[in-house]
Protein backbone atom coordinates (compact mmCIF):
# COMPACT_ATOMS: atom_id res chain seq x y z
CA UNK A 1 0.00 0.00 0.00
CA UNK A 2 2.73 2.40 1.02
CA UNK A 3 4.55 1.56 -2.20
CA UNK A 4 1.44 2.25 -4.30
CA UNK A 5 0.98 5.68 -2.70
CA UNK A 6 4.65 6.53 -3.07
CA UNK A 7 4.55 5.40 -6.71
CA UNK A 8 1.64 7.81 -7.26
CA UNK A 9 3.93 10.67 -6.22
CA UNK A 10 3.09 11.21 -2.54
CA UNK A 11 5.88 10.80 0.03
CA UNK A 12 4.94 8.40 2.85
CA UNK A 13 6.20 7.16 6.17
CA UNK A 14 4.95 4.17 8.12
CA UNK A 15 4.90 3.70 11.90
CA UNK A 16 5.84 0.05 12.25
CA UNK A 17 5.61 -2.33 15.18
CA UNK A 18 7.37 -4.97 13.10
CA UNK A 19 10.18 -3.14 11.30
CA UNK A 20 11.65 -6.32 9.82
CA UNK A 21 8.37 -7.15 8.11
CA UNK A 22 8.18 -3.61 6.83
CA UNK A 23 11.74 -3.81 5.48
CA UNK A 24 10.89 -7.07 3.76
CA UNK A 25 7.85 -5.51 2.09
CA UNK A 26 9.95 -2.70 0.63
CA UNK A 27 8.56 0.28 2.56
CA UNK A 28 10.09 3.56 1.34
CA UNK A 29 10.44 5.12 4.85
CA UNK A 30 9.63 3.80 8.28
CA UNK A 31 9.95 4.60 11.96
CA UNK A 32 9.88 1.95 14.65
CA UNK A 33 8.96 2.82 18.22
CA UNK A 34 9.07 -0.09 20.70
CA UNK A 35 5.38 -0.94 20.55
CA UNK A 36 3.26 -4.04 20.06
CA UNK A 37 1.27 -4.60 16.87
CA UNK A 38 -2.01 -2.76 17.37
CA UNK A 39 -0.60 0.21 19.27
CA UNK A 40 1.78 1.45 16.58
CA UNK A 41 1.19 5.10 17.46
CA UNK A 42 1.77 4.51 21.18
CA UNK A 43 0.11 3.52 24.43
CA UNK A 44 -3.69 3.97 24.56
CA UNK A 45 -4.73 7.24 26.24
CA UNK A 46 -1.08 8.34 26.50
CA UNK A 47 -1.44 11.55 24.52
CA UNK A 48 2.11 12.64 25.19
CA UNK A 49 3.64 9.45 23.77
CA UNK A 50 1.30 9.38 20.77
CA UNK A 51 2.02 13.00 20.04
CA UNK A 52 5.78 12.46 20.24
CA UNK A 53 5.59 9.42 17.96
CA UNK A 54 3.45 11.22 15.35
CA UNK A 55 5.66 14.31 15.48
CA UNK A 56 8.91 12.33 15.19
CA UNK A 57 7.43 10.25 12.36
CA UNK A 58 6.66 13.39 10.37
CA UNK A 59 10.13 14.81 11.06
CA UNK A 60 11.63 11.58 9.76
CA UNK A 61 9.46 11.80 6.65
CA UNK A 62 11.53 14.86 5.79
CA UNK A 63 14.91 13.74 7.11
CA UNK A 64 15.19 10.14 5.83
CA UNK A 65 17.13 10.40 2.59
CA UNK A 66 17.75 6.74 1.84
CA UNK A 67 14.98 4.68 0.24
CA UNK A 68 14.10 1.87 2.64
CA UNK A 69 15.37 3.84 5.62
CA UNK A 70 14.06 2.73 9.02
CA UNK A 71 14.66 4.88 12.11
CA UNK A 72 14.11 3.59 15.65
CA UNK A 73 12.12 5.90 17.92
CA UNK A 74 12.90 6.07 21.65
CA UNK A 75 9.40 5.34 22.98
CA UNK A 76 8.38 2.11 24.61
CA UNK A 77 5.01 0.65 25.44
CA UNK A 78 4.59 -2.93 26.63
CA UNK A 79 1.03 -4.25 26.54
CA UNK A 80 0.25 -6.45 29.52
CA UNK A 81 -2.08 -9.10 28.20
Amino acid at each position, binding site marked *: *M*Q*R*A*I*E*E*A*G*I*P*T*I*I*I*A*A*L*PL*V*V*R*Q*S*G*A*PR*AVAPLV*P*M*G*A*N*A*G*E*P*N*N*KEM*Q*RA*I*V*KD*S*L*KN*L*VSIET*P*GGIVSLPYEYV*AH*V
Partner: protein
Amino acid sequence: MSFTVVRGLQSEIFIPTVPPVFWTRVSKSLNEMVVALVTAGGVHLKSDKTFRLAGDSSYRRIPGDAKSDDLMVSHGGYDNTDVNKDINCMFPIDRIKELAKEGFIKGVASTHIGFMGGGGNIAAFTEITGPEIAGELVEQNVDAVLMTAG
Protein backbone atom coordinates in the same frame (compact mmCIF):
# COMPACT_ATOMS: atom_id res chain seq x y z
CA MET B 1 43.66 -21.33 -2.91
CA SER B 2 41.52 -22.05 -5.93
CA PHE B 3 37.74 -22.22 -6.25
CA THR B 4 35.64 -24.63 -8.23
CA VAL B 5 33.28 -22.72 -10.46
CA VAL B 6 30.04 -24.35 -11.55
CA ARG B 7 28.05 -22.21 -13.96
CA GLY B 8 24.29 -21.89 -13.26
CA LEU B 9 24.57 -23.40 -9.79
CA GLN B 10 21.78 -22.13 -7.53
CA SER B 11 21.57 -22.15 -3.76
CA GLU B 12 18.91 -24.41 -2.30
CA ILE B 13 18.61 -22.11 0.68
CA PHE B 14 15.69 -19.69 0.43
CA ILE B 15 16.98 -16.17 0.35
CA PRO B 16 14.29 -13.53 0.85
CA THR B 17 14.35 -10.73 -1.66
CA VAL B 18 13.32 -7.13 -1.10
CA PRO B 19 11.24 -5.62 -3.90
CA PRO B 20 12.56 -2.55 -5.73
CA VAL B 21 11.89 0.64 -3.79
CA PHE B 22 9.49 3.36 -4.83
CA TRP B 23 10.58 6.78 -3.74
CA THR B 24 9.05 10.24 -3.97
CA ARG B 25 11.26 13.07 -2.83
CA VAL B 26 9.91 15.41 -0.18
CA SER B 27 9.70 18.90 -1.67
CA LYS B 28 7.87 20.86 1.04
CA SER B 29 8.53 21.62 4.67
CA LEU B 30 6.15 20.12 7.25
CA ASN B 31 4.31 23.38 7.92
CA GLU B 32 3.36 23.48 4.22
CA MET B 33 2.03 19.92 4.12
CA VAL B 34 -1.51 18.60 4.16
CA VAL B 35 -1.23 15.15 5.70
CA ALA B 36 -3.52 12.12 5.34
CA LEU B 37 -3.60 9.07 7.58
CA VAL B 38 -3.74 5.61 6.03
CA THR B 39 -3.97 2.55 8.22
CA ALA B 40 -4.00 -1.17 7.65
CA GLY B 41 -5.46 -1.51 11.13
CA GLY B 42 -9.06 -2.01 10.01
CA VAL B 43 -10.27 1.44 11.21
CA HIS B 44 -13.61 2.82 9.94
CA LEU B 45 -16.61 4.91 10.99
CA LYS B 46 -18.98 3.07 13.34
CA SER B 47 -21.72 3.87 10.84
CA ASP B 48 -19.76 2.22 8.00
CA LYS B 49 -19.69 -1.41 6.94
CA THR B 50 -17.35 -3.58 9.03
CA PHE B 51 -14.54 -5.54 7.36
CA ARG B 52 -14.87 -9.27 6.85
CA LEU B 53 -12.40 -10.47 9.45
CA ALA B 54 -10.62 -12.98 7.25
CA GLY B 55 -9.58 -11.61 3.87
CA ASP B 56 -11.17 -8.31 2.90
CA SER B 57 -9.41 -6.15 0.34
CA SER B 58 -11.88 -3.26 0.38
CA TYR B 59 -11.20 0.08 2.06
CA ARG B 60 -13.17 2.75 3.94
CA ARG B 61 -13.06 6.53 3.72
CA ILE B 62 -12.76 8.36 7.03
CA PRO B 63 -13.55 12.10 7.06
CA GLY B 64 -10.64 14.24 8.26
CA ASP B 65 -12.88 15.92 10.82
CA ALA B 66 -14.31 12.63 12.16
CA LYS B 67 -14.46 12.37 15.94
CA SER B 68 -12.38 9.59 17.46
CA ASP B 69 -15.52 8.39 19.30
CA ASP B 70 -17.22 7.78 15.96
CA LEU B 71 -14.52 5.34 14.85
CA MET B 72 -14.04 1.64 15.46
CA VAL B 73 -11.88 -1.26 14.34
CA SER B 74 -12.81 -4.53 12.69
CA HIS B 75 -9.68 -6.53 12.04
CA GLY B 76 -9.09 -10.22 12.60
CA GLY B 77 -5.31 -10.08 12.54
CA TYR B 78 -4.20 -8.42 15.78
CA ASP B 79 -5.25 -7.94 19.39
CA ASN B 80 -7.83 -5.12 19.33
CA THR B 81 -7.71 -4.49 23.11
CA ASP B 82 -5.60 -1.32 22.96
CA VAL B 83 -7.30 0.18 19.94
CA ASN B 84 -10.72 -0.43 21.48
CA LYS B 85 -9.59 1.63 24.49
CA ASP B 86 -8.26 4.48 22.35
CA ILE B 87 -8.43 4.54 18.55
CA ASN B 88 -5.52 7.01 18.52
CA CYS B 89 -3.00 4.30 19.38
CA MET B 90 -3.49 2.89 15.87
CA PHE B 91 -5.11 5.84 14.11
CA PRO B 92 -3.77 9.07 15.67
CA ILE B 93 -6.56 11.29 14.29
CA ASP B 94 -6.75 13.54 17.38
CA ARG B 95 -2.96 13.95 17.48
CA ILE B 96 -2.75 14.93 13.80
CA LYS B 97 -5.59 17.46 14.28
CA GLU B 98 -3.68 18.98 17.22
CA LEU B 99 -0.48 19.25 15.16
CA ALA B 100 -2.41 20.99 12.38
CA LYS B 101 -3.96 23.41 14.85
CA GLU B 102 -0.53 24.26 16.21
CA GLY B 103 0.84 24.84 12.71
CA PHE B 104 3.37 21.99 12.88
CA ILE B 105 1.71 20.79 9.66
CA LYS B 106 -0.42 22.91 7.33
CA GLY B 107 -3.54 20.82 7.57
CA VAL B 108 -5.33 17.51 7.78
CA ALA B 109 -6.60 15.80 4.63
CA SER B 110 -10.34 15.93 4.05
CA THR B 111 -10.39 12.13 3.85
CA HIS B 112 -8.27 9.46 5.53
CA ILE B 113 -8.26 5.78 4.56
CA GLY B 114 -8.69 2.57 6.55
CA PHE B 115 -8.25 -0.94 5.22
CA MET B 116 -7.60 -4.35 6.73
CA GLY B 117 -4.03 -5.47 6.17
CA GLY B 118 -2.23 -8.52 7.36
CA GLY B 119 -2.74 -10.88 4.48
CA GLY B 120 -5.75 -11.77 2.37
CA ASN B 121 -5.70 -11.35 -1.37
CA ILE B 122 -2.31 -9.70 -1.89
CA ALA B 123 -2.82 -9.51 -5.67
CA ALA B 124 -6.06 -7.56 -5.15
CA PHE B 125 -4.30 -5.17 -2.75
CA THR B 126 -1.38 -4.67 -5.12
CA GLU B 127 -3.30 -4.37 -8.36
CA ILE B 128 -6.65 -2.85 -7.34
CA THR B 129 -6.97 -1.50 -3.79
CA GLY B 130 -3.50 0.09 -3.62
CA PRO B 131 -3.82 2.11 -6.83
CA GLU B 132 -7.43 3.08 -5.91
CA ILE B 133 -6.38 4.44 -2.52
CA ALA B 134 -3.37 6.20 -4.05
CA GLY B 135 -5.71 7.73 -6.67
CA GLU B 136 -8.02 9.10 -3.97
CA LEU B 137 -5.10 10.68 -2.14
CA VAL B 138 -3.70 12.23 -5.34
CA GLU B 139 -7.16 13.60 -6.18
CA GLN B 140 -7.41 15.45 -2.88
CA ASN B 141 -3.88 16.79 -3.33
CA VAL B 142 -2.37 15.58 -0.06
CA ASP B 143 1.32 16.34 0.37
CA ALA B 144 2.23 13.41 2.60
CA VAL B 145 0.81 10.24 4.09
CA LEU B 146 1.40 8.89 7.59
CA MET B 147 0.71 5.17 7.75
CA THR B 148 0.24 2.73 10.61
CA ALA B 149 0.66 -0.94 9.80
CA GLY B 150 3.11 -3.76 10.17
